[in-house]
């Protein structure tokens, strides 16, 4: 622990997290190829849980109080924390966002991906921008930069295409706990962990969360699923990134 309350990982810890991240990345790829129109979110959940257990890990999200699933699955206006219900059926033209994390050898890794079922140039462009924002954000996750630099580049990349960052949710440090400091907003906020200098041994779950319309959110009656108030589409891209002397190392890729 350093004095800012941020848990710094040593190279052995990063190595373990990289091992876990690799396993998580493989599961993520597998389910991306698996999802087809007509399937439902529970099908994905039922695929993922045994895969996580098979690699000797535990689903991180089941360790979150009152959340009993391995994945969070959302479509279109659903942005995060969607419960993988059977009634959530994927259709052609849907944007599907899947968020999952594993707890492996004492450490969490966390990743998300959004993809489109079918072809729609507008939606494809929407997702491309989010992916680009995450790439650029990871690129600035270097020793000496500030947490605010990550937020700034995400906001700027989204704004260039007219998209809006979500303001009520943040990316976060990750390690022994799923949610650690620093908190990483997708926009430049006054205060928070913005001025925290990035140091070697930070491991961050950088999340790009954004929407086509206004960033106001509502929570469904299940008290978990969070969606945009105006019902316009949203996207979610997340990777766990370790800060090393050589630069950012994406653990969940």
């Amino acid at each position, binding site marked *: 622990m350093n004095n800012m309350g941020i848990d710094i990982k040593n190279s052995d810890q990063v190595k373990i997290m990289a091992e876990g991240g690799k396993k998580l990345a493989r599961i993520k790829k597998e389910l991306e190829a698996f999802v087809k129109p007509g399937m439902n979110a529970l099908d994905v959940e039922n695929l993922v849980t045994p895969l996580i257990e098979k690699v000797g890990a535990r689903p991180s*999200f089941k360790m*979150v109080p009152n959340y009993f699933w391995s994945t969070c699955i959302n479509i279109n206006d659903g942005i995060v*924390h969607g419960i993988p219900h059977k009634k959530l059926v994927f259709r052609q033209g849907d944007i599907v966002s899947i*968020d999952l994390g594993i707890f492996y050898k004492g450490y969490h890794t966390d990743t998300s991906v959004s993809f489109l079922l079918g072809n729609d140039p507008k939606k494809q462009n929407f997702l491309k921008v989010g992916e680009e924002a995450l790439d650029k954000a990871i690129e600035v996750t270097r020793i000496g930069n500030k947490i605010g630099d990550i937020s700034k580049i995400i906001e700027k990349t989204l704004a260039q295409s007219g998209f809006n960052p979500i303001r009520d*949710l*943040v990316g*976060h440090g990750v390690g022994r706990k*799923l*949610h650690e400091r620093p908190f990483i907003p997708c926009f430049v906020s006054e205060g928070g962990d913005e001025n925290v200098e990035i140091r070697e041994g930070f491991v961050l779950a950088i999340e790009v*969360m954004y929407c086509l319309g206004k960033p106001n959110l509502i929570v469904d009656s299940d008290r978990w699923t969070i969606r945009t108030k105006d019902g316009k589409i949203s996207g979610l891209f997340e990777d766990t990134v370790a800060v090393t002397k050589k630069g950012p190392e994406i653990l969940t890729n």
Partner: protein
Amino acid sequence: MSKDTRNVVIDGTVLEALPNTMFMVELTDERKILTTLTGRMRRNFIRIFPGDRVKVEMTPYDTQRGRIVYKY
């Protein structure tokens, strides 16, 4: 899974009145936390006694403290 940074409002019961209009409140999930009154609760001169049921607002940043925003 992202971290939700919005405040949450939880029900609780006042256990004890402490100095400086602070209260020890037991939340419905059995956590005991230290709370203060919001300005609105002070202005309207709402009296809080042990045993009262209240709504407590908490930020995701501090799990030890909260603010009483409503008395039932």
